[in-house]
């Protein structure tokens, strides 16, 4: 009898709690924002940092009373889909977003996935924010995709030029994974290096994406003795091992990449051997991070146990979507209105100190504004942390 009473009391308590939670959630209408990207397999870190950044920001907004667009205040809900880095799954994910009536989707993370979802997005009136670099996605007649980060053909030349002018780099060697994204980034990097007058001494060393031992791969590259070794499109999983192997083979030159990395991963995987490794980051280095950025990092860490430095860049997409909708509430279910707002949109950048702005760029690279103005922050790893090497802007 006592057990039955206890069971009833527990059930009633659980029901009350769930009703309270439902009531709190139901007070505000929900604005759904989608994410289609890779959250499993070897490249999971790329998509998970996207997804968790969005979830952290959405929880923060919901906790502080929702987000007001026009006359309505919304709770933000992130609807996620793991495309497993497979273009077919990415299409299925984008179709799911369309079925749910979602008009704004962050992702996919890779070139072929981003290209594959284009017809679905255009047919169903979805604006999507890929982390992939093919220019045709962002150039007319395409108009629904907005590049969510700085492309390698924008950051690469800036890094090479800095190293040429400031550090006397004359020769470059490239290493890339045998996949479409890294290979296309390598081609872009080689062209940029040659255009700057650098001598490319090695540009055909590639590795399987699941390689765990890079010494055999790097041995012939090291014999060409480049001043700079570029790890084109390298994933955070492979970067520490590549850096460590190169240093263990006696390489004393510069090592750089145009992808975002994580300081903890570098420290654990390569230790002091990663000192001097140059990569592209976002806005969380102490020199430029605002209080809002610091709070975002704290909230992310609290939610997921550990921050991922890749999120320094990935914090931006959701913010841009919401701020643009706030600027033109009619865009909430009409992406044509969103497109009209892009050209004139400007809002304060909450994640950077100073008077940095959120705005759309891309005229130089794409002939139209189809890129988020994420700061081009070039970092150098030193003793477990990233230090800002230089900051530039893209357009």
């Amino acid at each position: 009898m006592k057990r039955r009473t206890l069971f009833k009391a527990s059930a009633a308590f659980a029901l009350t709690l769930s009703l309270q939670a439902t009531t709190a959630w139901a007070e505000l209408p929900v604005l759904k924002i989608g994410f289609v990207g890779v959250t499993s397999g070897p490249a999971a870190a790329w998509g998970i940092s996207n997804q968790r950044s969005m979830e952290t920001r959405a929880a923060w907004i919901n906790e502080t009373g929702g987000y007001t667009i026009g006359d309505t205040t919304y709770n933000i809900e992130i609807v996620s889909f793991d495309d497993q880095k497979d273009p077919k799954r990415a299409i299925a994910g984008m179709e799911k977003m369309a079925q749910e009536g979602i008009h704004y989707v962050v992702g996919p993370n890779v070139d072929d996935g981003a290209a594959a979802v284009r017809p679905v997005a255009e047919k169903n009136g979805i604006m999507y924010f890929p982390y992939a670099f093919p220019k045709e996605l962002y150039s007319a007649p395409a108009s629904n995709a907005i590049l969510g980060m700085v492309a390698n053909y924008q950051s690469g030349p800036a890094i090479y030029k800095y190293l040429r002018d400031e550090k006397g780099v004359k020769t470059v060697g490239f290493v890339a994974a045998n996949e479409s994204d890294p290979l296309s980034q390598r081609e872009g990097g080689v062209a940029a290096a040659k255009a700057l007058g650098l001598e490319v001494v090695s540009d055909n060393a590639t590795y399987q994406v699941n390689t765990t031992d890079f010494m055999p791969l790097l041995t012939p590259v090291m014999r060409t003795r480049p001043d700079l070794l570029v790890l084109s499109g390298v994933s955070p999983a492979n970067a520490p091992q590549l850096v460590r192997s190169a240093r263990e083979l006696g390489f004393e030159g510069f090592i750089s990449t145009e992808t975002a990395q994580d300081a903890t991963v570098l420290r654990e995987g390569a230790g002091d051997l990663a000192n001097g490794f140059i990569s592209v980051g976002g806005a969380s280095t102490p020199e430029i991070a605002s209080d809002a950025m610091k709070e975002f990092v704290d909230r992310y860490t609290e939610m997921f146990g550990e921050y991922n430095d890749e999120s320094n860049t990935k914090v931006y997409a959701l913010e841009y979507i919401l701020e643009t909708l706030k600027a033109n509430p009619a865009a909430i279910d009409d992406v044509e209105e969103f497109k009209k707002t892009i050209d004139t949109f400007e809002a304060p950048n909450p994640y950077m100190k100073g008077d940095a702005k959120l705005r759309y760029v891309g005229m130089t690279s794409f002939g139209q504004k189809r890129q988020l103005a994420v700061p081009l922050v070039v970092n150098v790893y030193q003793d477990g942390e990233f230090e800002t090497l230089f900051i530039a802007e893209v357009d």
Partner: protein
Amino acid sequence: MEQILANGIYLGAQYAMIALGLTLIFALMNVLNFAHGQMYVLGGFVTYTFYGQLGWPFAFALLMSCITLAVLGALIERYLFAPVIKRSSREESTMLLAAGLAFLFDAMILLLFGEKQRGVPKLVDGVFNWDFRVIMPYDRILIGALAIVSIVAFILFMQYSKTGRALRALAQDRSAAQLMGVNVDRYSMVGFALGAMLAGLVGGLLVTITGVNLGMGGPTSIQAFIMVMIGGAGVISGAIAGGIILGFLEATGLALLSQYGDITYLLIFVSLMIFLAIRPQGLMGKPWG
């Protein structure tokens, strides 16, 4: 050439260890363990937790990897594979179970250890450099040597211990072993635990060199299957031979063919297809199973 030899020996020893556990489980139970790579990853994460995170001695962390995976392997065999094998004579039932386990482990690893690449402090600093003809970090030499010692210890265990003899009898003929008094259920569990323990051991050893991440499981399983196919499924010496051959092929291909792009694995796969068309049972396997 010396560098290719050194890389080949190191890679071969590492690969042979990965293949050993897989082929042992196949030999004993006729189970293609698609979750072998995930067990390897789990072993790496256990060592990472004890050695990298908690700062305990590496030997203890490695022991914990072995124990954790052995216990996990025993439980999996006892409560999952053994009942399925008893109830279903279709081989694909165990294959589907193994594939399901691989997905389950991936999800568990993501929840427990996160999505990031993890690494641990180097065991030994410094690099052996013989006049730039052979360059090999000392920690690789140490891990390579430990892998070779482990393989030798495993062979001696299988050859001379009572458990090893029982396991070999089970692998050769399950019914005959049972008739000779071998407790088939018990030794199947011991064999599966041993195979899983080997995965944990190699995961724990290699986390010091390659690090470990969530996505390594699937590709590791595929690599292990290639080695087993080369050497012959279910044959211990075949797995070792397969691992060493794959290690040398990779080291040679990457050194000599890198200027032609990434054709090393393309050539390995083409060679494997031709080889299997001529000798489908592998180098040391028997055509009748």
